[in-house]
């Protein structure tokens, strides 16, 4: 099937628009997270999302809306565990992640299981994205991107070195909170794309690929976004053409991009 012909389908158009927005968002935020050694925060918050989705299904609230406050709370919990209890990031993420999953399983058990609904959030289905979800993804993505743009220098500075950023007058605790909250919102949005299980891949892989090839922070931002969007568009096309699960296809394409970039870097010396 031709790519242009394939774009005539309404559900494909919705998937392409929502996917591109979320891919750019994940790719840019992922750069800050990977450099801060917080790569797995996406994974941890995605598990919290699972709890949020279960809550939403239980109380008949649209799962994305139910997940946002729950995940924001999870992000806040991770930060406070790091700051107050002086836990390392991985331990704090592990605790909150486990709590999220446990909450989800418990609620699903109490409610007698949600079967198909919960399963679709676990593994995602971008080809089933509704018009409302496209609008929500676009509005939320643009909002988050504008916030990143406004705090771009603060985010880079804190990512480079927190002490130096503090002595530059940057409120590092506030910037850390902003980063985690933006990640929380992004994880919820990305959940429909690749599912709870694979969200962190979309945050980590384009960024890591970009670090191999980029010659500056700005070029890394552009490359990361390009890799993210490329993987989503190609993933949608391949999964539709060959009847494969979209989320897993997108993630594997990202791994392929990383392998190619590594190989190219090796060959170039």
């Amino acid at each position: 099937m031709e790519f242009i012909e394939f774009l005539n389908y309404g559900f494909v158009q919705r998937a392409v628009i929502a996917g591109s927005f979320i891919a750019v968002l994940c790719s840019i935020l992922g750069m800050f997270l990977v450099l801060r050694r917080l790569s797995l925060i996406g994974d941890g918050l995605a598990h919290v999302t699972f709890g949020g989705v279960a809550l939403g299904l239980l109380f008949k609230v649209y799962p994305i809306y139910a997940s946002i406050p729950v995940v924001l709370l999870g992000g806040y919990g991770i930060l406070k565990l790091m700051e107050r209890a002086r836990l390392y990031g991985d331990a704090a993420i592990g605790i909150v992640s486990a709590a999220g999953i446990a909450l989800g399983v418990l609620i699903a058990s109490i409610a007698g299981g949600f079967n198909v609904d919960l399963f679709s959030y676990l593994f995602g289905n971008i080809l089933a994205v509704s018009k409302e979800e496209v609008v929500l993804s676009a509005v939320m993505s643009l909002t988050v991107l504008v916030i990143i743009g406004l705090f771009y220098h603060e985010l880079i500075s804190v990512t480079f070195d927190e002490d130096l950023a503090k002595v530059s007058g940057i409120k590092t605790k506030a910037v850390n909170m902003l980063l985690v909250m933006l990640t929380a919102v992004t994880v919820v949005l990305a959940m429909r794309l690749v599912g709870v299980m694979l969200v962190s891949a979309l945050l980590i892989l384009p960024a890591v690929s970009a670090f191999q090839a980029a010659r500056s922070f700005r070029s890394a931002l552009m490359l990361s976004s390009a890799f993210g969007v490329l993987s989503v568009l190609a993933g949608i096309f391949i999964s539709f053409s060959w009847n494969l699960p979209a989320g897993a296809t997108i993630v594997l394409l990202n791994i392929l991009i990383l392998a190619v970039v590594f190989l190219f870097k090796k060959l170039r010396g």
Partner: protein
Amino acid sequence: MQIISVENLSVRYNSTDVFSGVTLGVNAGDYVALAGHNGSGKSTLIKAMLGLIEPAAGSVKIFGASPSGFINWQKVGYIPQRLVSFSPYFPATVKEVVSMGLLSGKRFPKRLSSGDGDAIDRALSLMDIAALKDKKIGELSGGQQQRVIIARAIINEPELLILDEPTAAVDPETRERFFGIIDGLNKNKNTTVILITHDTGSAGRYASKLLYFDRRVVFYGTFKDFCESTNMAEYFGPGSQHLICHRHD
């Protein structure tokens, strides 16, 4: 005028005192060499001065304000012993890293202006790293990275420079060049300097004062006073005191 005043300062880690009851002041134009053996609390002291560590008791004033309420951070340049959270994969160029030093003087939303390019070029030239400006910071040697951090710290021509063993990883030629630059800033622009160093002999060539710290202020005064102090002769033993003073002469 006192640039920094420390009153009865105590810092505690995990309910153990690093130091307590420290009181001292640093005047405008002072060049203070802060010396002491490993684990004596030197780095902790300057981190507390900068508000990077919350004190258990006492107070710090920097340009008359507490570190948490201080806003004119463009007046301060800081060079840490090592970068705490820096990732070697950080993709920024040398130019991008040095430009971060300019952010402290800017209001929200912080943006670089076209005129900032000159300041960046000047700082790069001063540290002799202009040729490296488009290289990624992670690709540089430890010494080159340190020069980048120094350029970042001096780009605003700060009124106060706090340096934590800044030349530990650089070659002797760069070290001499660096001390020359800091000396020039101190003498020509009246920049106040606090320099943590183990090399009291070299520091004595430039620094006007010695602060010897060992979980308390052991000595704070001019090198001349230090060398003439019988108390210090007793504290260090005449051999060690002579070593510092001889090299200073």
